């Protein structure tokens, strides 16, 4: 199980790479934002993985979970915050994209650059 | 008595799982959009009903069962609605069912 013990971290790394690639290489502005969202999701996965404890359960006390082992609540709190931050960035980014489309008629980065150089 | 409920619930869960699986295969293998939709939506509802009722039997008379009933009601209402809306949108946009020999205006528009 040693290899599998790191599987989540690897998925984090792969997702991070995929998202990062999309942000860097794609010229479409909406696609960049999608890439950014993926990129951030990867980080969420990292944190939540960190908080998991073998054989644990969610850190919410209840009659059915008396005396159980609980996973760490702290990373979950952080990621709750980060998810909301993520959607805020996405919303603002989309707002800017809509304005760019209105002003330039395009949402392709290279076309916009060309228009500005004229 | 509990044994009987358990057995009934297991049977429901298993058939539910089977229905779900069949629906998945159907959605993948059927030849065109509408047949796929048929496969997906019908078994979707059936599978959901079977599995959720199976879980209800496990839950007994508790708040959990009430919540499961709510989910069930919700799924039974929304799942066909979504399928219907989707099919009509596809039809309006001009996707014709396979084997449809009539013109675009003879379709059963909503």
């Amino acid at each position, binding site marked *: 199980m040693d290899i599998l013990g790191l599987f989540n971290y690897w998925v984090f790394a792969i997702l991070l790479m995929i998202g990062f690639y999309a942000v860097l290489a794609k010229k479409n502005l909406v696609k960049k934002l999608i890439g950014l969202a993926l990129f951030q999701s990867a980080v969420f996965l990292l944190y939540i993985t960190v908080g998991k404890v*073998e054989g644990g359960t969610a*850190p919410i006390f209840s009659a059915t979970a008396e005396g159980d082992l609980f*996973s760490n609540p702290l990373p979950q709190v952080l990621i709750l915050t980060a998810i909301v931050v993520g959607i805020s960035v996405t*919303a603002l980014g*989309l707002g800017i994209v809509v304005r760019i489309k209105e002003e330039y008629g395009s949402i392709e980065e290279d076309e916009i650059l060309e228009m500005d150089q004229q | 008595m509990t044994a009987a409920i358990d057995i009934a619930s297991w049977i429901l869960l298993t058939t539910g799982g089977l229905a779900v699986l069949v629906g998945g295969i159907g959605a993948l293998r059927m030849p065109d959009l509408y047949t796929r939709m048929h496969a997906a939506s019908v078994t979707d509802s059936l599978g959901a009903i079977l599995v959720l009722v199976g879980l209800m039997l496990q839950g007994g008379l508790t708040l959990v069962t009430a919540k499961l009933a709510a989910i069930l009601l919700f799924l039974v209402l929304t799942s066909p609605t979504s399928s219907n809306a989707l099919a009509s949108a596809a039809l309006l946009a001009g996707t014709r069912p396979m084997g449809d020999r009539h013109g675009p205006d003879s379709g059963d528009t909503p």
Partner: protein
Amino acid sequence: MTELFGIFLLTLLVITAVAVVRAQNLFVAVMLMGIASLLIAVNFFLLDAADVALTEAAVGAGISTVLFLSALALTVDREKAPKTKVGLAIAVTVVAGLVIFYATLGEPRFGDPNSPVQTHVGPWYLEKTPELVDIPNVVTAVLGSYRGYDTLGEVFVVFTAGIGVLFLLGHGRVRRSLEEETRQNEGLRHYLIPRVIGQLLIPFIILFGLYVQFHGEYGPGGGFQAGAIIAAGMILYALLEGEKHALTVIPQKVLLGMMAGGALLYTTVGIAGMLMGGNFLDYSVLNDNPVIGQQTGIILIEAGVGITVTGTLLAIFHAFAARGD
């Protein structure tokens, strides 16, 4: 066994992510992103993060998809074929990836109960919460009280995003013709079945949102999740009945008031703590019994969070939807 399910789902997630990046049709990319979000959320659930799974489902799969679609409706839904070289991007990405892989070898194994994370700070919360705050959901206790300052900041992040979108899109252009305006505003009125079913469900959705809001101390839920759910319910209404109609029910002014009001409520609770002899955001002093004070404080600030999130998400949605081109 659950670990194996997790691994399977994560593999699906990676496949989906690749497809998202490859899809040239932006609409398809957004749809696949919805799937990716659901997959991540299920994984969160399997990793014992019920609250996060709830948030990811409501925000990631729900609101985010709706926002992306609203933006796509205003722009174009197809990406132009890439012309430029991507060599540098690939190189940077691969190098970063390899470095991370190398470093992961030194990390504690998945679920290791002896890892630093499970032995420092975290256990303190689990141990002390019953005594100090006495609510079952430790996540809510940490969110609302121990790290309440973070949450305050987060509410203001949402608030800032709302201000930003309103600043950019709030004072838009005037529509061209009356006819166009009516068409733009009609929503899904002609789809009879969805409309009837949807209207039937909206009250229950809002009710459920309120349940999530006030049940947040006992089970998964809280202000963010509830805010997102209630906003989703109102968005459903706007989809069915059209923009204009939805705005007459809750006008933008009210939404703006909610945005600011929730954030102000949160801050006020913090200041109340200060005035009553504690530190900022110290709820213990709100009542003679510190534990009850904590609980009161958490309920109040969660309400503030819920109000701001609902108001902001709705305001953002309307800002997009009302901007016909």
